[in-house]
């Protein structure tokens, strides 16, 4: 995913002369180094100083530049208060990208696994929050947040290389990838590809809706899918507190109160392991999701 992101940035950088990329001593692992080599005068590496980076980006935005600040997702959160007090408060045109998000930093362990970033960014007024999962979608989402006005946070994983979308990314739009009438699964990031696998061959008829924009949530698509299916599962590589599952629950509790099962990482920290082992441990692989589909379909309310 980070490879696609790096390629996307270079493409956009060639078209938009105001684009400036910043990083905090992670130019190589985040793959923004290619942008730095191509456009050295529009590239700033501030060293291991995320708080400084985020506010330097704010200053650039206050001078009509379009800064994209890139760090590992958990360490971007170190600058959360700067994001809150300066960027989000004044709706500055700063784009933040957290890489190695979710469980994807796998072997590095809990310190490097970001399971809270969607919650922390979603709570901020003015902030757009994007969690793409498909290789091409990462590039399109990068372009979309750069072209939109105002602050945005995009989180991407490390090494996953999924391709499951036929249509392009549109900011604020959810995509129905599979129709079904017994249960609907809302998911984002790489895990949507696990959800699609789960739906194939499941004993129930599952609808799959990919929701790459967590904020603003595509309320129309979420409510109408929930109405049609009558039971909901949310799947994300994030804490079950505060992320996509919470956003969907908040909406449906008022607009279409149905059974909602939130799948993600429970109220706990991660640990070292391979990416697959961690997904398995937190029951985020296709077989577990398929099991949940059956259970949820059994708890469907009236439409």
């Amino acid at each position: 995913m980070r490879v696609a992101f790096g390629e996307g940035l270079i493409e956009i950088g060639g078209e938009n002369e105001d684009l400036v990329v910043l990083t905090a001593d992670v130019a190589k692992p985040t793959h923004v180094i290619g942008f730095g080599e191509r456009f050295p005068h529009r590239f700033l590496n501030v060293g291991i100083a995320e708080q400084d980076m985020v506010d330097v980006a704010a200053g650039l935005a206050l001078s009509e530049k379009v800064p994209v600040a890139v760090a590992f997702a958990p360490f971007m959160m170190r600058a959360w208060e700067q994001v809150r007090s300066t960027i989000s408060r004044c709706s500055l045109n700063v784009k933040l990208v957290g890489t190695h998000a979710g469980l994807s930093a796998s072997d590095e362990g809990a310190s490097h696994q970001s399971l809270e970033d969607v919650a922390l960014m979603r709570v901020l007024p003015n902030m757009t929050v994007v969690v793409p999962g498909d290789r091409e979608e990462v590039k399109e989402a990068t372009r979309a947040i750069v072209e939109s006005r105002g602050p945005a946070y995009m989180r991407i994983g490390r090494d996953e290389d999924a391709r499951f979308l036929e249509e392009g990314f549109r900011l604020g739009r959810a995509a129905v990838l599979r129709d079904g009438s017994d249960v609907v699964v809302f998911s984002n990031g790489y895990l949507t590809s696990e959800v699609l696998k789960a739906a194939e061959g499941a004993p129930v008829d599952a609808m799959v809706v990919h929701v790459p924009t967590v904020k603003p949530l595509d309320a129309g698509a979420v409510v109408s899918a929930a109405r049609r299916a009558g039971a909901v599962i949310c799947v994300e590589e994030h804490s079950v507190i505060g992320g996509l599952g919470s956003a969907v629950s908040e909406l449906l509790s008022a607009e279409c109160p149905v059974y909602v099962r939130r799948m993600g990482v429970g109220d706990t920290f991660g640990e070292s392991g391979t990416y697959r082992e961690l997904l398995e441990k937190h029951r985020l692989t296709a077989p577990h999701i398929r099991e949940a589909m059956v259970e949820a379909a059994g708890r469907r309310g009236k439409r």
Partner: protein
Amino acid sequence: MSSTVELADLKHATDVQKVKERIRNVQRMLVEMTSSMGVHLGSSLSCLEIIATLYFLKMRHTPHRPQWKERDRFILSKGHAAPVLYAVLAEAGYFPKEELRTLKRIDSRLQGHPDLKTPGVDAPSGSLGQGISIGIGMAVAAKMRGSRSRVYVLAGDGECDEGQVWESLMTAAHLRLGNLVLIIDRNGWQLDDRTEEVKRKVPLRSKLESFGWETYSINGHDVEKIVEVLDAAERAEQPVAIIAHTKKGKGISFLEDSNKGHKLKLSEEEYLAAIKELEMKAKCA
């Protein structure tokens, strides 16, 4: 030749006199504001001459066109001194002076701490330690577009406790930002106590120098000295730090060099005493 120099000196002296007159206006506005609302009066008064000299003499800016791209920028990193910034902006003509009465009131453009809602405010602040970083972004942007726009950041001495200050000092020196000036309002107080009691700052000057900044130390209430050092800063090829030695509550004797005026609302009696003192000093000037 010598007559040209004399003429320039005369003009300079007149300019400085004008700044001093306007400083007296701003002092009066601050006292008025503090009579109806609790404000950080002491830390506003300690940096009044600095902000006034920047806006009334040094900076290139256009109050009728606050968003002019080529303007010099000012960032009040110690955002709690917002009242003095607002009073200076009003005196400069960014908005009507009457609006100062709305300070911190509901629906006002004059928030408790600087916000982009206020005409003339270049950057938000209120959470300490962020101004230098924001200034770096602006200074870099100016360099990128080949602009001669300069960036001035005013920080408090207590604020130097924040780790981000030192992150940004390293960044600015590394980037050799000769268009960035940091002024530290060295009034010796922070919220809880004297700065050296809460956490030692000395030797501040050698710390700044060792971080790669061209560093000066001045009396922060002396307008001539402020102009002189800001002129020198324009010739620098690296970022410049100015330690401005000041007194919290400067100009109002019952507040001077104490923490009483950290945040206060003046009583009727205090208000009258403050106004009387300012009027006396104005007569002697």
